[in-house]
């Protein structure tokens, strides 16, 4: 019998490790002056340096160092007074020099932490994720495998290489071993990546778009029998490209690994790839034969020795911490803990704040984003913020407040906006979703309902108020849901002699 997630975490204790790669949004690449603009024609943003031509030499982008130090400071790290680049040597066609200039044993930021909040059975609880290191490196080029059935390298007829991405500055943020999460490992992982994304966004150092790959997460996970105090063999899941996937990848790996362990099989130390559709991971390259990257200090670059006064200047420019901001907004909006955590974990804080800033009522803004919009986003398996803008949501809310829309109609408007039918006003016009509040039109419908259900009408007249529901329902049906239900109820009861 195979274990499901709940059964798995009753037997096994998960241990996490998260590696997040972030593309910095500097104008030029890490070691040359080529543009980092996304989407250029292949190989148009290259030069001798990022193509690794013989004789070319790297020069560090000062802005990238500044961004990395900012990240380190925001993550409570120590900034190393002396750090170095190192070469990570391995062969791959999309890597121009066949080594990646990275940092190894002397990273620029070390020993930080990030506090997150997770919803538990006992309410919202804080959890501290310790950060091992933050270091700089360069991105590789991209391979496009043409022909063959899978689009993967095996079976392809030929491959094309685009080096526009080669040399784009990357920052890698690596946690220490994250233990003690128990069954909340998926929530911790997601809350951490969410919080990290919010911090990076607030620093303005990266676009942090997981779907476009400017933020990528590798999830390391191992299991050990509860209480054993051991660390199991870990797998490293790559290709985890959304917050939701982070959570699903952890769940998927816990279930997969627990079932292997349950069956007496061993866990293979390997790279796995997350499958968006199934939520499962697929085996990639085995790391049993640990690849030897032959790291050594990059002789073409001088050590990074940031001035301590400069570090303090940067520290002074740090924006309000997302956690501080959350506490402030929570107080301003008077939101319960649990709902606040949901907002944050769903990545909706910014859009809700924006919606409220435009003038929407805080409670309604929250409930629209967290409710209807999130539901539609879940159905489509996309990020809610990509579906509709804060100003559109604010507009819908204001139309409800003015009585021009009912909640039910508003849901249809939102659906229309998401379907690309235009702005809320356009959707209303196009779909004819105006609230029917004209007494004459409603009275006609009410009369028709009474005529078709005389017995029910009689019971209401006799004082059985709840029975009016059936009549109201008939009116709503007749008006295609566009009637204001409260108004219908008022008119109906009055007509049947039950109005106040």
């Amino acid at each position: 019998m195979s274990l499901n997630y709940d059964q798995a975490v009753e037997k096994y204790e998960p241990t996490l490790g998260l590696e997040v790669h972030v593309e910095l949004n500097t104008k030029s690449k890490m070691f040359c002056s080529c543009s980092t603009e996304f989407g250029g024609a292949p190989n148009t943003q290259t030069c001798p340096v990022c193509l690794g031509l013989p004789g070319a030499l790297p020069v560090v982008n000062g802005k990238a160092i500044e961004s990395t130090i900012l990240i380190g400071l925001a993550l409570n790290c120590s900034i190393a007074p002396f750090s170095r680049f190192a070469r990570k040597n391995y062969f791959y066609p999309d890597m121009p020099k066949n080594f990646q200039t990275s940092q190894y044993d002397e990273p620029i930021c070390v020993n930080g932490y990030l506090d997150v909040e997770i919803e538990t059975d006992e309410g919202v609880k804080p959890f501290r994720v310790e950060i091992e290191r933050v270091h700089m490196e360069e991105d590789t080029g991209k391979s496009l495998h043409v022909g063959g059935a899978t689009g993967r390298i095996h079976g392809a007829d030929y491959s094309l290489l685009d080096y526009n991405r080669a040399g784009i500055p990357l920052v890698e943020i690596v946690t220490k071993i994250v233990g003690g999460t128990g069954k909340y490992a998926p929530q911790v992982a997601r809350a951490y990546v969410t919080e990290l994304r919010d911090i990076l966004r607030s620093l303005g150092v990266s676009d942090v778009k997981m779907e476009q790959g400017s933020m990528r997460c590798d999830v390391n996970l191992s299991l050990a029998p509860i209480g054993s105090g051991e660390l199991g063999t870990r797998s490293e899941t790559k290709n985890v490209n959304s917050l939701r996937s982070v959570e699903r990848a952890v769940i998927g790996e816990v279930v997969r690994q627990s079932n292997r362990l349950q069956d007496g099989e061993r866990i293979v130390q390997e790279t796995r790839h997350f499958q968006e559709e199934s939520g499962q991971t697929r085996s990639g390259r085995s790391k049993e034969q640990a690849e030897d990257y032959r790291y050594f200090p990059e002789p073409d670059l001088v050590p990074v020795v940031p001035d301590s006064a400069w570090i303090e200047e940067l520290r002074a420019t740090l924006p309000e911490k997302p956690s501080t901001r959350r506490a402030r907004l929570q107080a301003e909006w008077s939101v319960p803990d649990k709902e606040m955590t949901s907002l944050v974990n769903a990545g909706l804080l910014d859009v809700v704040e924006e919606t409220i800033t435009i003038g929407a009522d805080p409670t309604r803004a929250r409930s629209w984003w967290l409710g209807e919009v999130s539901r539609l986003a879940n159905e489509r398996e996309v990020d809610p913020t990509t579906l509709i803008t804060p100003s559109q949501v604010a507009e819908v809310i204001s139309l409800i407040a003015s009585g021009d829309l009912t909640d039910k109609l508003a849901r249809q408007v939102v659906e229309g906006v998401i379907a690309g039918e235009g702005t809320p006003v356009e959707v209303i016009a196009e779909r004819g979703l105006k609230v029917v509040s004209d007494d004459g039109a409603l009275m006609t419908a009410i009369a028709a309902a009474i005529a078709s259900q005389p017995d029910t009408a009689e019971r209401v007249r006799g004082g059985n108020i709840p029975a009016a529901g059936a009549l109201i329902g008939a009116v709503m049906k007749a008006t295609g849901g566009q009637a204001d239900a409260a108004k219908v109820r008022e008119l109906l009861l009055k007509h049947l002699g039950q109005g106040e």
Partner: protein
Amino acid sequence: MAAALASGETTSVELTEAHYAQIEKVDAQVHAFLYLDKEGALAQAADVDAKRKSGVELSPLAGIPLALKDVLAQKGIPTTCGSKMLEGWRPPYDSTVVSKLKAAGIVILGKTNMDEFAMGSSTENSAYGVTHNPWDLTRIPGGSGGGSSAALAAFEAPLAIGTDTGGSIRQPAAVTGTVGVKPTYGGVSRYGLIAFSSSLDQAGPCARTVLDAALLHEVIAGHDERDSTSIDAPVPQVVKAAKKLDVKGMKIGVVKELQGEGFQSGVLSKFHEGLDALVAAGAELVEVSCPTFDYALAAYYLIAPSECSSNLARFDSMRYGIRIGDDGNRSAEEVMKLTRHEGFGPEVKRRIILGTYALSSGYYDAYYGSAQKVRTLLMRDFNAAFAQADVLVSPTAPTTAFKIGANDNDPLAMYLNDIATIPVNMAGIGGMSLPCGLAEEDGLPVGFQIMSPAMRDDLMYQVGGTLEAALLSKWGGPLLDKAPVLAGN
């Protein structure tokens, strides 16, 4: 030559054509050049002549021809590093050294032969044939920059550029009776110098006199923002120093460890004649000891191969150079393997394997790590020595030029050629070799090495210029006058 150009006695075009004529005459015997850019050189010469005629102010070396070691990228000109791997590759950019040469109006005649990827001490490791020493065509011209030095000795070019990772400028200068200088590491930009060992490589001037070398040194030196390791400080005034001709009161440190076992007797006796000349000129000799020098060679043969194993990884057939076995069925990895198998020569492969091993996990500390420690100790030895002396001196190479093929089966014997030059690279300081006579036993040139503290390159030029003047008056003319005249075709 510069004076003749300035006075209008000759033109750059005439000078350039004369050198091509000499190349035409003797290069079949010497084989110093891999590529001649006659069209480009003559156009550049004509340009300088036109500028001179119109009265534009020109740099001192404008219009003088030069031979460029094939390890430096020159836009549009084949650049092979003496390797089959880069056959046919024409760089789309100029190295900083080449940009500076062009800006100074120096006429680049062509590219000179070298040991493949600058790995060797004899130019026998070139994929394009050996270069012969103009003093004796059966002997090696040194390496890796044998082509550049041989071109000078054979009067095929008055100036040349070399690169020196462990002695590749100085040792060829020594065995061809010419002058070669390895500037302080970071003194000359490495941008466009195809890397062998990044932390050791340094381009420098090759010439027939110390002053010529100084003039060329000032053209190519200086900070370059495209090379992070280039030093952001004023270039030492080496031309002024070379003209001083005065060493009175200077302390010359004679390195005890670089004159004993393994040094040919004729080399030592000429070296001592050089010392005598310096003493006669008013310098004071002090003996200095650098005990760590005994480990320099071993440490070098860990660091240089380690860095080369990584630097040469980029030659994978994907973007430039040759590609072997791409028949549509083989994978990229298979084509890479075949190309590297065919494209690299045995010495390059030997060093890649050595370096790959030295950097491997589990061996790193014992090999690469220990070698870096030796490097730190070497620097300490040099610092202590420079506390006692203004410059240090030694013979440049333990022997005169050996016969072609003599060390074919003994890489270690070959490596020993660089025993006196390697410590300079390891410490990043400056080193010069100038001729100090012909060894009695074989009549071949002997090199005298002067080492100066980092960024005090002027000191070695001062001592070198003085020594050269003293020896010239003793000999009654340049040493190269004693070289056999090549018959030509």
